Each structure stands twice: as structure tokens, then as C-alpha cells.
């Protein structure tokens, strides 16, 4: 139980084990069968399971999404991989107009068990078109499920669940998460969706960190601890369905809510979580904040990029001001994430 894997290795293991176990699982996407294997997450699958079950695709994201959906209608469980989440913008028609609606629109006579994996890019000048976290677009649409695990353990369990799920699942990764290491059991396990994970308990403020921001929130928690503030860090893991209960219970306890996303905030997951928590809390209101990308496309130059994202320091500062008020300004140490510092590709 103490075996450690990277997040990327956990994804590969989940896929490998599910493919071994279920012949209907197929993997498609640009580069899934090349020597890089999507940061190692699909490496060796084509060799082990054959080129029919793990195949490269032409640059045709729209139709390839349709192909995945059609294959699902024909009995497969396809995993469609996009090396950047930005490319799913080419797939919106198939995902929203067909995948999300097929079961309902066809009166329950079909289902669409597909997984769409996509990776949010960051660092080393990825820029405006290689850095978007677009999960909220999918959270808007009934019929889809959206998960964004942050730990290797959850990555494996959620990917297995996503593959077995009978519905279209958007599986959101983050390039900086691929390097995270953690305990991952060897056996095959599935984690049901709709369950948030309290990554680390606390009493003064609830910090909800989405995807990679869960990691950054844990770092913020350490900074806050230095000044005597106890933050509870929650990873929602599953964004649709969303586990409002767990978050609301935490907020009821701490009395303060900070939500941090690796995405824009307007109509984002942060807005949804604030609103859903307030709905759940009934009349009670608590101080809250939301943090996310700056309201701009992502710039490439490093000094602007650094300002673009929430960081442990800005997260801690926001939590601090929720707890202590703005009158007690505080400047935490600035810690730049090692994975961000070290990243230079491959892209």
C-alpha cells in the first residue's frame, strides 16, 4: 500500500489494467502510440494491446470525437486523449450536442460510455491557446460528467470509474499534476463520482482547490499554518456531479470559504461552488472569495505568467484576509512550485 507512483504512471496503470480486463476499452488520440505516449500515460498500450485498441488519429478532433461516440454506440468504451484541453474546443459539437444528449434524446435506448481525457497546459510559454482550463463549459451541460482528480490515488480510481461509467466523462488533468507522486495501490479500484476529498483538515477557513490548485492550496495551507491559521483543504475531485455536502459541511464548520480554480472565474466552477454552497447553507452566509486565472488570455512571458495564476502566496493571502480581515495585511513567502520551475517540456 505504500507503493508510490506519479500521477502519469497512475493513469497508465489504470488504463492498462482496464484494457486487460475489458476488451471493449480502446484508446485513441493524436500521439497515443508514439514514443512519448502522452507524457507516458499511454506508453506501451499499442504494443501490449495492439494497434486496433490504441491508435493515433489524424488532426480531426471533431470527427474523432464522433468516432469515439460512434464506437461507444457500437459497444466500445473509448478513451479519447487530448494533449491540451484547448483542443476540445474543436469537439464541442459532438460532446455537447450528441454525447451529452444521446441517452435522453433517444429515450434511453443507447448510452455513450466515452472518456475524454484532456490536459491543462502551463509554464514555459504555453500561452493563450495551450493553457486553458475549460471544465466549467462541461459542468454547464446535463448528461456529461466532469472529474478533475489531483492525487495519483484519485487519478487511478477516477479514471477506472470514468472508463466503467456508462456516460460521457470529461477527465480533466493538469500538466503540472503529472509529476506529482503519491501512494497508489496496485489492485484495480474505482472511485465513485460525486465525492469530494478533504485533503487536509482545518478549522478556520475552507479552501477548495480544483485540479492542480488543490496542490497549490496545500502549499498555501503550510504558509497559513506559519501564522497560526488552520485551513481545511478540499479537493472536489468530481465537478459534475459536485459533492456540495462535503464542502458545505466544511464551510458550516470553518465559517469561511475560498475557492481556487485553474480556470477563469466568470461562470466558472468557483461561481457554481459558491452558489451551491450558499444554497445548501440556507439562510446562513459566510465570507468567501474566489480565485482563478486573471481575466485575460494567458501571456507567455514568465513574469506576466507568474501573475496570471493563483499561487500558494496569493491563495494564503486571500485566506488570511478572510480570517483576519483586510486590515491586517500579510505578505507570505513566495514559493514557486517546483514542477512549474522545472518544467521545460516535453509539451
Amino acid at each position: 500500500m505504500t507503493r508510490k507512483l506519479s500521477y502519469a504512471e497512475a493513469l497508465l496503470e489504470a488504463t492498462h489494467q482496464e484494457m486487460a480486463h475489458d476488451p471493449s476499452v480502446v484508446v485513441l488520440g493524436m500521439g497515443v502510440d508514439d514514443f512519448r505516449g502522452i507524457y507516458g500515460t499511454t506508453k506501451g498500450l499499442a504494443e501490449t494491446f495492439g494497434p486496433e485498441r490504441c491508435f493515433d488519429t489524424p488532426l480531426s478532433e471533431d470527427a474523432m470525437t464522433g468516432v469515439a461516440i460512434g464506437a461507444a454506440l457500437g459497444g466500445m468504451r473509448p478513451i479519447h486523449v487530448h494533449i491540451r484541453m484547448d483542443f476540445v474546443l474543436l469537439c464541442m459539437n459532438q460532446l455537447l450536442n450528441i454525447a451529452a444528449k444521446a441517452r435522453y434524446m433517444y429515450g434511453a435506448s443507447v448510452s455513450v460510455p466515452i472518456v475524454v481525457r484532456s490536459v491543462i497546459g502551463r509554464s514555459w510559454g504555453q500561452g493563450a491557446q495551450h493553457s486553458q482550463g475549460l471544465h466549467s463549459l462541461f459542468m454547464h451541460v446535463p448528461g456529461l460528467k466532469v472529474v478533475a482528480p489531483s492525487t495519483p490515488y484519485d487519478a487511478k480510481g477516477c479514471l477506472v470509474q470514468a472508463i466503467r461509467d456508462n456516460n460521457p466523462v470529461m477527465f480533466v488533468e493538469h500538466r503540472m499534476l503529472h509529476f506529482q507522486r503519491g501512494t497508489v495501490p496496485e489492485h484495480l479500484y474505482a472511485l465513485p463520482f460525486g465525492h469530494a476529498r478533504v485533503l487536509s483538515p482545518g478549522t478556520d477557513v475552507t479552501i477548495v482547490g480544483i485540479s492542480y490548485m488543490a496542490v497549490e492550496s496545500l502549499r498555501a495551507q503550510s504558509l497559513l499554518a506559519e501564522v497560526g491559521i488552520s485551513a481545511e483543504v478540499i479537493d472536489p475531485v468530481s465537478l459534475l456531479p459536485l459533492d456540495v455536502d462535503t464542502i458545505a459541511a466544511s464551510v458550516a464548520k470553518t465559517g469561511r470559504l475560498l475557492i481556487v480554480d485553474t480556470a477563469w472565474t466568470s461562470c466558472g466552477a468557483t461561481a457554481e461552488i459558491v452558489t451551491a454552497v450558499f444554497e445548501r447553507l440556507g439562510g446562513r452566509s459566510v465570507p468567501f472569495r474566489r480565485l482563478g486565472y486573471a481575466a485575460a488570455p494567458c501571456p507567455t512571458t514568465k513574469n506576466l505568467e507568474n501573475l496570471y495564476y493563483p499561487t500558494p502566496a496569493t491563495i494564503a493571502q486571500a485566506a488570511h484576509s478572510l480570517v483576519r480581515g483586510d486590515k491586517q495585511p500579510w505578505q507570505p513567502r513566495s514559493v514557486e512550485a517546483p514542477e512549474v520551475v522545472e518544467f521545460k517540456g516535453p509539451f
Partner: protein
Amino acid sequence: MNQTEVFYRQVLRIRRVEEEVARVYPTDKIKSPVHLSIGQEGVSVGICAALRKTDVVCPTYRGHALYLAKGGDLNAMIAELYGKVTGCTRGKGGSMHLIDVAAGVLGASAIVGTTIPLAVGYAYAQRVKKTDTVVASFFGDGAVDEGAFHESMNFAALHKLPVLFVCENNFYSIHSPQLARQPHANLCDRASSYGVKSEQLDGCDVPELYARAQAAVESVRAGDGPRFLECMTYRFREHVGPNEDFHAGYRSREEAEPWFARDPLRLLGQRLDPIVRTRIEAEVELEIADAFAFAESSPFPPSEELLADVYLEAQ
């Protein structure tokens, strides 16, 4: 029954179903856009005759003909148009989303071009599962301008997938004539550029279409890769709705006359003994009357259906 009788019966049945839909329409019992295929039935009938029951077709929103030609349940179709819970999508999809999985009719889509890659993906699944099922993807002359068509052709050809691409070229996309959308009207050239064998066929001559389709289906089933059939046909009614629209100005009745003369129903009927025709007509009328009665007497879906079946959850 000989082949002509079978074809006549099928074309007539589709024609009469749609004429009944048009007749009932002003009563507002069918609260749904309807895209009638009156005039175009020959294509669906000729192609489906070349397919096996286990083969699969992907229709468009103009899908009544294909649904019926492939053996889709008539009662469930009419009930669907009436919005009844006995409809083929339980009243949730209406005329534009017909489906009958048992009969090999994959769901139709109201977004032009979307089902083309679905057909290709379905065919890919057959490849993995090592079945010999053939998938026929139907679409209009407008749909071939969507990028999805090209991406689908390329991928199907790349993997030599068992797909029969059937373009029903009725020369119009809504009110837009072909040459207002396509610089080069020979759609077969587009398919050929992927190395996909393609032919332009007469959609009014059902027996001939059937013969050519048979050869194409055989080759597809044998693993020779996809084929493309451009079937020339003509829509007699307005794009959507029950009426004719030659007064609207975008096309003339004169343009339509030669097509009326070559109406597939007429061409087939001419080759039959009037007595046989009368018998078939009577049978068809009975069946249709039953279907409309079934639809009329079926209940609407209960309110719980509103939120049912958004997801399929494991039991």
C-alpha cells in the same frame, strides 16, 4: 412477392405515411418540425434492400424514409411524432431524432453532419469486434460541406472501415441551391480524393440503385474499405413542414416537373399490375391507419420523465 412489388410496397408505405403526417399536421397533433422525404424515398428503399437486418443505418433529421426502409417500428414513429410515451424515444426526441436500435436504425440528429463520424465510429467498433456488419451513413448534399464529412472520409478510408457513405443529393440545403454552396458540383470527386470509390446514381430508379448498392455493400463487407454513393433525388415538399413551396421563389415548379415524372413511386407502379397495386395499397392503408390510431390512443409521458434518463447509472 417479386422485387418490384416489394419496392413498390416500401416506397408507397413511406409516401403514404408522410402524406398522412402532412394531412394530420394542420390539426396540431404533431407539435414538431417535420422534414418530409416525399420524392426521395427511392434512395432509402434501394439502399436498405442491399443491407442485412443486422447492418446499421444512420439517418438525418429527414429520416422518416430511412427509418421505415430499414425496418423501424411504424407505430413507435407515429407515436413519437405525436409526442407520446410509446414513441421510439418516449416522446423526448420527436421527428428529428428517430431511433430503432433493434432494427439497426441509429439515432438521427438535428445538427447537420454530426452522424457521419458516428457511423464511422460504429464501424470501427465492428472492426474491433470482428463482426461483418456494414454501416450506412446517410446525409444530404449540404452536409458534405461540413468539415466532419471530410475528417470522417479520411479516417474511414485510412482504416478501410465498413462504411457505405450515402449522399442524398436533392440539390438544396434549405433554400440554397447546390452551386451557391459548392464551386464544383461533382461530390464524388471529394470522396475519390481519399481514395474512396464513388459513383453517382439515379435515386429514382430503385431496382438499378439496389443493384449498384448491392455491389458496393458487398465490397464494403469484404473489407475493401468504404464506398461513396451520390444518389440524385429531389424533395417535393418544403424543407420543413407539410406543404409544397414552389411559390416561394427559390425553385420553380418547372424545375420539379421532370422529377415528378420520374417519381420513384410512379416508376415502380407502372411496372405493376393494377390489381396487385390495389391490394398493396389497401394493406398499406390499414397498417398506417393502425399506427395513427395507436399514436392517438397512447398516453403522453408522465412528468417524472422530465428528469429520467439523463444518465445511465449502473444498477
